[in-house]
């Protein structure tokens, strides 16, 4: 048992902090910090800056740009990135399809996709969920039927995040409708979003923003070489990928940043002439969330420090559950601190409401998503009850 980071890790943390705060454009980081819309070009610029320094895909195999870091180094890398409000490398590329291709793709696919995926030369989107296949993903119905060397895809995907920016989609499709177990008849195909027969419909969210889309496939012809791994093994790849999705999902650094903002804004608002931060009830609320965040960070450290043998620590399931709850608690605090200013979400020029108060409620409403995506919190409870408590 030792509290301090080793001198090497302290130096590593400094190196990360210094890179993120000096080598990623300040205008982009300011937008992330302000919870403002980040444009596609800005995501690309930030990821390319990281990739040029070898910091976009450290968890990939070394051969394809990985760094062979320990889980603790990866944790520090991610935390520092979030604290510096750097847009994180696009998860669909770096945490999902990249690792799947690196692990299960053929050599040709690796050479064709991996470097461009790391550099965000290809923007990937995820074609998993369907209108009738959410948490029960394995009941998906989009089909792919062989036609000569090609596949012909028909069906519909939904909740496709940032699909409007995407060049390619990785898609789970049903290739064997007769398989005894529904999980066994699924394959993973990749294809360009501008393939004839692909149409995309944006879905407006309650915050007024457009992040997710419906994607429709009508007789979409996909070359046979675009099958990833083996036919009918797509479910295994999906599970592998979703495991990666949960890594770093605690987002402690991002929540810390929000809490720091909450303190700053609670100084700007006064109640009966005193800063709101000095109101005992508000100070207590912030202290309580902050303490839970400390507990979560320490749990994340416990998990990463003990998962060096490749197996996740049993407590890792706690991270998604509590991490999402605390992200939501932080956004809720910001709305409450803004008080009546929090309704001015779409104010433009001519309004005196500060920017942070304008975005507070849309952000809070938008963040309802974090306890739903990446395996809803109810799915996480099922995992904890089943695999840890044996219930």
């Amino acid at each position, binding site marked *: *048992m*030792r*509290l*301090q*980071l*080793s001198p090497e*890790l302290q130096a590593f943390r400094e190196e990360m902090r210094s890179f993120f705060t000096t080598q990623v454009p300040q205008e982009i980081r300011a937008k992330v910090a302000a919870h403002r819309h980040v444009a596609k070009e800005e995501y690309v610029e930030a990821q390319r800056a990281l990739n040029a320094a070898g910091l976009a895909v450290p968890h990939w195999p070394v051969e394809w740009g990985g760094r062979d870091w320990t889980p*603790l180094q990866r944790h520090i890398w991610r935390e520092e990135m979030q*604290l510096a409000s750097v847009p994180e490398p696009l998860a669909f590329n770096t945490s999902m399809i990249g690792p799947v291709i690196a692990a299960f793709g053929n050599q040709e696919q690796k050479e064709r996709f991996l470097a461009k995926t790391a550099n965000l030369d290809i923007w990937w989107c995820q074609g998993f969920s369907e209108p009738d296949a959410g948490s029960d993903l394995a009941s998906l119905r989009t089909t792919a039927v062989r036609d000569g060397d090609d596949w012909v895809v028909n069906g519909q995907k939904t909740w496709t995040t940032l699909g409007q920016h995407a060049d390619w989609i990785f898609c789970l499709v049903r290739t064997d409708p007769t398989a005894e177990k529904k999980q066994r008849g699924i394959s993973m195909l990749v294809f360009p979003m501008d393939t004839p027969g692909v149409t995309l419909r944006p879905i407006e969210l309650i915050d007024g923003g457009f992040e997710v889309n419906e994607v429709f496939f009508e007789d979409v012809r996909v070359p046979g070489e675009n099958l990833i791994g083996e036919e009918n093994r797509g479910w295994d790849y999906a599970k592998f990928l979703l495991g990666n999705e949960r890594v770093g999902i605690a987002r402690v650094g991002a929540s*810390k*940043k929000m*809490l*720091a903002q909450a*303190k*700053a804004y609670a*100084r700007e608002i006064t109640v009966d002439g005193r800063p709101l*931060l*000095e109101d*005992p009830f508000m*100070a*207590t609320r*912030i*202290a*309580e969330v*902050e*303490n*839970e*965040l*400390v*507990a*979560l*960070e*320490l*749990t994340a*450290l*416990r998990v990463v*420090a*003990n998962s060096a043998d490749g197996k996740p620590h049993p*407590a890792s399931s*706690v991270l998604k*559950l*509590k991490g999402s709850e605390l992200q939501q608690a932080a956004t809720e605090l910001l709305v409450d601190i803004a008080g009546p200013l929090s309704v001015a979400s779409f104010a433009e020029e001519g309004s005196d409401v500060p920017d942070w108060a304008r975005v507070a409620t849309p952000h809070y409403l938008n963040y309802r998503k974090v306890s739903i995506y990446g395996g809803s919190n*109810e799915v*996480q*409870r*099922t995992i*904890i*009850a*089943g695999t*840890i*408590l*044996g*219930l």
Partner: protein
Amino acid sequence: MDFTFDSEQNDLREAVRGLLERAYGDSETRRKVVGNDPGFDEKTWSRLAEMGLLGLPFAEEHGGMGAGPIEVAIVAEEIGRVIAPEPFIEAVVLAGGLIAAVGTDEQKSELLAAIAEGACVPAFAHAEIGTRWSTSASAVTAAQAGEGWTLSGVKEPVPNGARADLLVVSAVVDGGTGLFLVQGDAPGLTRTGYRTHDGSRAANVRFDGTPATRLGDGSPAHPDRTAAIERALSEARIAYSHEAIGAMDTALRITADYLKTRKQFGVTLNRFQALTFRAADMYVSLELARSTALWASMVQEAGGDVVSAADRTRLQSSRAGRHVGKEAIQLHGGIGVTAEYSVGHYTSRLTAIDHLLGDGGFAVARLAEHVGERETVDPLGAPYA
């Protein structure tokens, strides 16, 4: 940064667990033991002494083992696992800790050795009716009497106060709070013991011109001991967090086992998602509290801000202890409220731990006073590491 125990620490855990399993593996034994005064088993106390546990945190030159906060944490957690009624934290960590912190060399040599041997069971007489979780005294005052001192006033509740061979007493002196030693058989000392809801013992302790000696160097340079009291209370709060972790761990295990075996509507209870989801939430509370408790002990070992770290772990384990304790009973149903079934006793002990030295509300109020001082809290940085 390392959250793993070394092999000696694992050996210590094994040894303590073995001893306590033999003593209290059957929860009926605990029920019998706490049914009679002094509320713990003197033989088990002797065995703890033989294993060196009663001198665990004391320096070797004073008859102790010279072990650190992590070892104390391990013992406390194992105590919690079977809710052993022996007052390890109250006597060794808190009362003994005060003697180790402020005693003169002579006092330390004499008293800590006696505590380590199991010959002297001390108690800290600090709480007073009408105040709560204060670092200072107000109801007991000390007066100089020749070379020595006399104490007057009432302390209550004093955990283990009737059985104690030696009382470490906080008292008003020179306008501040001093610490004094009173022998269990001192004249002018009246102790009325009673059973507490968790099976422990506490007492009303009345001083009436009772002779006392000053703990530590009584020179005017050190008139006030509130800082030492705050620190000792903080270290005991951390230890209580570990006891709570052990107790929660068992309460959750018992509850999960029950859900797997108890049948209603023709199926075992673990078929009901309304119940299993709540058990999953108990696990979340427990693990977050566990991480924080381990961290607080590491802060203590690293010489960081132990008062703030104690507040953080107290808050986390208070919230978790209430959550786990209440749900453990609810998920059992009626059997959970009965005295003959074990789980309710865990809830009772968790409730006592929560209130002896400060609950979550107390801790969060203290943390809130400083919430604006730092932009973010870095548990691996200042003021903790």
